[in-house]
């Protein structure tokens, strides 16, 4: 599925990525053929329930997969300046890949309390990133660290840099982690559920921060979340994932206003909207996500789908709705007409 947006540079393109997990001597096809493009300075939101494979997709891009898993097939291409680097062909912890991590592509994680090392100061953890990707001397690194903390909105940065993670509040910790990730000015920032562990009010602040980064540094952001509200706020494009495949992808306004996949539609209908009042029609999605080891044949959403038919036992192919919106469903026309 390729989105045609002529004006924007593509900085990362993922083509038919398959990543399988081999834990407990079973084969879990966590990511089973996923394709998307990330554009410079734009935010791609990947949304889906727990276990749909969105985090694994992110990990695949960074090659941070667990030991008992691997990228089976597909391409991950990072377009750096003039080169096209095939990330999937690099050694997981070899020098080329490590040079990319932290400097070109950075990642921030869900829970900053556990994601930061408790025995080292925030400053030293940020400096570590600078140490391995720049040739700055000690003094400049300290300066840069304080600068980054300040930019991320942390008050008293020189003091804070010498403090430990447990001395920070939740929101500040996340800001510190973002400071660490942005310290080498990466072209792509992957945010894996960055606000799930935070209060709603802090969430808003973090989003503001990320928006600022996007605008000031033209950083492309891949935002992973299970929260549609977050997508509506921040994303320019959205990819809806279910059981390892992207079922719908496109411009966020188009997808959210005119969903073309039954799953997307069902997701949107299951969220209460603030301000709409008591009479909203909130419908939970019937059924439950299937066991990844006992997958249904054909379209994975078949057992829970209101539009299902016999045709759906064949895995759906891409249907292009508009230039910037495509879906994997045989019944997309019906779904659209019901909107």
């Amino acid at each position, binding site marked *: 599925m390729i989105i045609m947006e002529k004006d924007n540079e593509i900085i990362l393109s993922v083509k038919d990525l398959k990543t399988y997990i081999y834990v407990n001597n079973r084969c879990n096809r966590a990511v089973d053929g996923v394709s998307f493009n990330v554009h410079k300075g734009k935010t791609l939101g990947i949304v889906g329930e727990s276990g749909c494979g969105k985090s694994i997709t992110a990990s695949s891009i*960074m090659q*941070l997969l667990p030991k008992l898993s691997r990228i089976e097939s597909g391409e991950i291409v990072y377009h750096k300046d003039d080169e096209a680097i095939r990330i999937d062909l690099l050694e997981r*912890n070899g020098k080329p*890949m*490590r*040079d*990319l*991590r*932290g*400097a070109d592509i*950075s*990642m921030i*994680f869900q*829970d900053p309390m*556990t*994601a*930061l*090392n*408790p*025995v*080292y100061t925030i400053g030293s953890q940020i400096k*570590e*990133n600078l140490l*391995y*990707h720049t040739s700055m001397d000690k003094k400049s690194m300290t300066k840069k660290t304080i600068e980054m903390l300040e930019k991320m909105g942390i008050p008293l940065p020189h003091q804070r840099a010498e403090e*430990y993670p*447990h001395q920070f509040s939740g929101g500040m910790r996340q800001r510190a*982690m973002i400071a*660490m*990730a942005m310290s080498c000015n990466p072209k792509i920032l992957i945010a894996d559920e960055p606000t799930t562990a935070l209060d709603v009010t802090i969430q808003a602040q973090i989003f503001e921060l990320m928006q600022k980064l996007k605008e000031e540094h033209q950083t492309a952001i891949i935002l992973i979340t299970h929260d549609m509200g977050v997508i509506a706020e921040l994303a320019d494009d959205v990819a809806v994932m279910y059981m390892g495949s992207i079922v719908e992808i496109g411009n966020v306004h188009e997808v959210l206003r005119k969903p073309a996949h039954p799953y997307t539609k069902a997701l949107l209908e299951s969220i209460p909207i603030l301000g709409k009042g008591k009479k909203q029609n909130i419908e939970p999605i019937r059924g439950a996500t299937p066991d990844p080891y006992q997958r249904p044949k054909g379209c994975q959403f078949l057992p829970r789908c209101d539009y299902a038919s016999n045709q759906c036992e064949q895995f759906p192919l891409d249907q292009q709705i508009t230039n910037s919106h495509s879906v994997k469903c045989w019944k997309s026309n019906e779904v659209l007409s019901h909107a």
Partner: protein
Amino acid sequence: MMLVISFIIYLGLELTPGDAVSRMLPPDATINMKAEELEKIRESLGLNEPFIVRYFLWLGGVLQGDFGYSLASGVPIKDIVLDRLPATLELSITALILSSILGVLFGSISALKRGTVTDIIFTIFGMLGVSVPVFIFGLIALVIFALNLGWLPVGQRILPGYDSYWDHMPHLIMPAGVLALMLTAGVMRYSRSSMLDSLNKEYIRTARSKGIPEWRVNFVHGLRVALIPIVVLIGFRLPMLIGGAVIIEQVFQWPGVGELFVFNVRSQNYPLVMMIAFFSVLAVLLASFFIDLFTAILDPRIKLE
């Protein structure tokens, strides 16, 4: 708590056979005394006072360094013990440092190479170290290295005239080595599991995401955090270090406090036995204190009080 222990020790002293006077004064002072003189001495030492008073008198003496006299030799206990202390310290501290370093090293390598042959070998070694009685190791070492191959001296600590730590080294190698062997096995097991725990945590992933080299991820991040529970666990095992030292000192005739203790248990020299027991508790408490301090240094989340 020490107070309670001191009370118990005193109780022990009182209850065991042996005249209090011979405990508290050098025997040559009382040896030729007549009954009345002895009675006067008893009065002056407060031995006719009620139990509690006598306890506090004893306690006072202890705090000032007067630990009484050995029943057998009449030498002040303080001198006897102090004379032997350096030997035991040499042995224990060497074994402690050696086993801690090796244990952590082997354990973390085991964790990193989990499931491979290296891991299996280390684990087997660990199981043996915990199962084979420490003195067996000692005896076997004695036979092989000292008696048969003649590489190392057969026990004892010094030759007259040579008195620095390094001079003791040839004699120290076997006892400290064997003791360290036993301890390393235990340290290795904790290190392995602690390291595995640490490597499973989120901050390891974050470290990797910064593109730093693997060795740094595993050691600067992984091991450094794993060290905290390892140190705590080593602390819990310190009493075993003392126990092991007692046995090893016997096997190798190492002239330390442990050997002293065993000898006096055999000869039923109660004052000495009681006081050494008392000191051992003191030693454990002191060591625990240091371990706590060390842990607080390693873990910034703990506030020093």
